């Protein structure tokens, strides 16, 4: 057989092989590709040391009742449409990098004392907030975040609620019967996960809440547990709210404030690579700095049957671009939020922190949403002069450019 003839035969065989394979693989460009995402269960925002004080009931219940298994069973019964969840440890060397968790960010238990119809009552409230988080452990970035509806249950018994009663209520809210309504965080999470889109590739440029300062004027209003560790608990609380708000509101690549317990749990679902636990987060391209300047309560209307008060929170927000060329200030403004709370005269005790906390939560959300709309009540509330408004709008334009650069 001549060499030319051999060549011809091989060329024909290869051409046939090539066209078949390309056709077969073109068919493979489908929506069937589902990212395998590691299941990291239920986690808590903050450090391990904060569990007992900030998540007194929910952390106990998750551990004692093995709620991670319950959550996984719930996911199996109603699996997500766009991703695949695995309870196995994934190997980073095989290219896997996404983990998901139900991140509990806040547990509030508040008991007050009132007199209604000459009878002492003890109105109590339990509030749980959580979010669905998908985290890219390779680049340490949140790639998807969806806040679950905040569950808030109240009761007004004549007896001071026992610890066991409160624990049972938290259990119900976590499972499936929050406030007797047949809804709990586990099924809310499963429903949210069912529709969550596949994680997008993490961006090369990302935001991060870089620095949080709590000024002395804010201290008298803070609960003791938030003052722990030289105010680190409060700083992480604010940073987490801001991070969540920016992720929810702008769909941008954003790093967590610190590699907290939640991040470490997600990282621990992976093997391979040089190390599993990575406490060093990459340097963010855009840094968000937040200064909590203080809180203020002012009378709005005082009458015999009760009074209404303005609860206000004051802050300063700055956004800095940190590139190899150096730092560039994009935005820096004082910002505030206030609204009215009614306090009936029958109510003997008032949880002022709960009211300030509500304002703080609204403020952190507004910073990445309403602030960008000059017709919003929040923007108008700032009382900018015409000259200030021009400056603020120019600065906001730069921030919006940064959001676009980090869009997922």
């Amino acid at each position, binding site marked *: 057989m001549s060499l030319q003839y051999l060549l011809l035969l091989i060329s024909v065989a290869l051409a046939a092989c090539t066209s078949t394979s390309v056709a077969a693989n073109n068919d493979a460009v489908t929506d069937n590709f589902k990212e395998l995402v590691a299941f990291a269960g239920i986690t808590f925002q903050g450090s391990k040391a904060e569990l007992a004080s900030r998540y007194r009931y929910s952390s106990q219940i998750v551990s004692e009742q093995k709620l991670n298994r319950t959550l996984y069973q719930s996911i199996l019964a109603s699996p997500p449409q766009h991703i695949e969840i695995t309870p196995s440890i994934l190997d980073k060397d095989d*290219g896997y990098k996404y983990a998901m968790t139900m991140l509990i960010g806040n547990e509030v238990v508040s008991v007050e004392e009132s007199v209604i119809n000459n009878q002492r009552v003890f109105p109590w409230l339990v509030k749980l907030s959580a979010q669905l988080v998908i985290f890219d452990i390779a680049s340490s970035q949140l790639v998807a975040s969806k806040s679950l509806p905040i569950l808030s249950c109240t009761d007004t018994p004549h007896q001071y609620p026992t610890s066991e009663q409160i624990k049972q209520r938290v259990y119900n809210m976590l499972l499936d019967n929050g406030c007797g309504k047949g809804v709990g965080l586990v099924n809310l999470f499963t429903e949210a996960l069912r529709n969550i889109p596949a994680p997008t590739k993490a961006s090369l440029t990302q935001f991060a809440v870089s620095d949080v300062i709590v000024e002395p004027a804010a201290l008298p209003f803070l609960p003791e547990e938030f003052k722990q560790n030289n105010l680190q608990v409060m700083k992480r609380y604010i940073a987490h709210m801001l991070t969540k708000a920016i992720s929810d509101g702008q769909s941008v690549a954003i790093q967590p404030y610190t590699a907290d317990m939640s991040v470490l749990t997600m990282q621990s679902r992976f093997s391979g690579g040089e190390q599993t636990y990575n406490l060093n987060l990459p340097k963010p391209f855009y840094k968000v700095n937040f200064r909590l300047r203080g809180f203020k309560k002012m009378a709005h209307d005082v009458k015999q049957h009760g009074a209404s008060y303005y609860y206000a929170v004051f802050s300063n927000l700055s956004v800095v671009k940190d590139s190899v060329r150096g730092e560039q200030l994009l935005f820096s403004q004082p910002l505030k939020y206030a609204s009215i709370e009614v306090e009936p005269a029958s109510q003997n005790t008032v949880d002022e922190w709960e009211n300030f906390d509500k304002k703080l939560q609204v403020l952190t959300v507004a910073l990445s949403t309403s602030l960008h709309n000059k017709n919003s009540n929040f923007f108008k509330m700032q009382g900018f002069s015409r000259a200030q408004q021009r400056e603020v709008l120019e600065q906001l334009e730069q921030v919006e450019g940064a959001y676009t650069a980090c869009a997922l």
Partner: protein
Amino acid sequence: MRALINRLMVALVFSVLFTNAYAASVRIEGFTEHTQQSAFTQQDKEHQVRVALYRAITNYYQQHNQRLLTQLKQKVPEEVMIKNVLKLVGEYDVQQEIGDDNTLITEVIALFDSTGFHTKMSNLIANDTPSTVVLVEFISPSDDTLKPIASLLDVSLKAQLSRNPSVNVAVDYQELQMLTGGAFNFLQVRDEFNSNGSISPAGLNIAAKAKAGFSDAFSVVAYHQLKYDGVDDMLGVAHQVKVRSQVNVYNANTGELVASEALNNELGTGDSIQQAAQNGLNRAARKLSEKLIGIF
């Protein structure tokens, strides 16, 4: 005519390289940015998908096995890889968009059969005369939970290395002892490891040279440290064993250390502790053998 024969060789290589369907896949990512003055045709777009997939493969090897990447670039021309890359990947996802400056941005995520590819690369770069490798492999459990089962575990680097056609792996230690007139004695080597936690390769090198005759001879020493990591508390269903491995490769003729590869964070899981440990060892052996492609 020589150029024609070279082209024929590459074509033959690819026909061997890409015939098997992918089996165990890894997830790879790549992207391209391509600007041109004219409008993008379907052909342009498909070409960019192939380039992005090729880059995804090279990105993977950049991170995981630079030695193999070097071999790949030396042995297979880039344009040939790009032309045939669709045969290497399994399922893949493409996102393409055209930016304002007429830049076509193509991003791909794909499943890639790295294990099958490693085997084929081994075939591709195999020497005419296989090298002889004398292998010793040691397991050291670092806690009491694993000590009782250590003797029940199988080391599997021999099986993994033997998939490489350019390697003859020798582990018949009695034969090696006879060949060397006792200069190599596995029991002494094992005692040395148990006392010191490491061994001198001198005896192995003598054995490798004796076994190899005129072919290339190497000594390979692999250590595996095992640590029981408890039951996975997420779902409480699987035992976990952490594995740290190191492999040293010596040129038996010169005594030179030619490669040293380590794995720091392998994990085996299983319904029993033994199964978890075995899975971890198997995983470590697979990765170590992939890291050694191109050395023998």
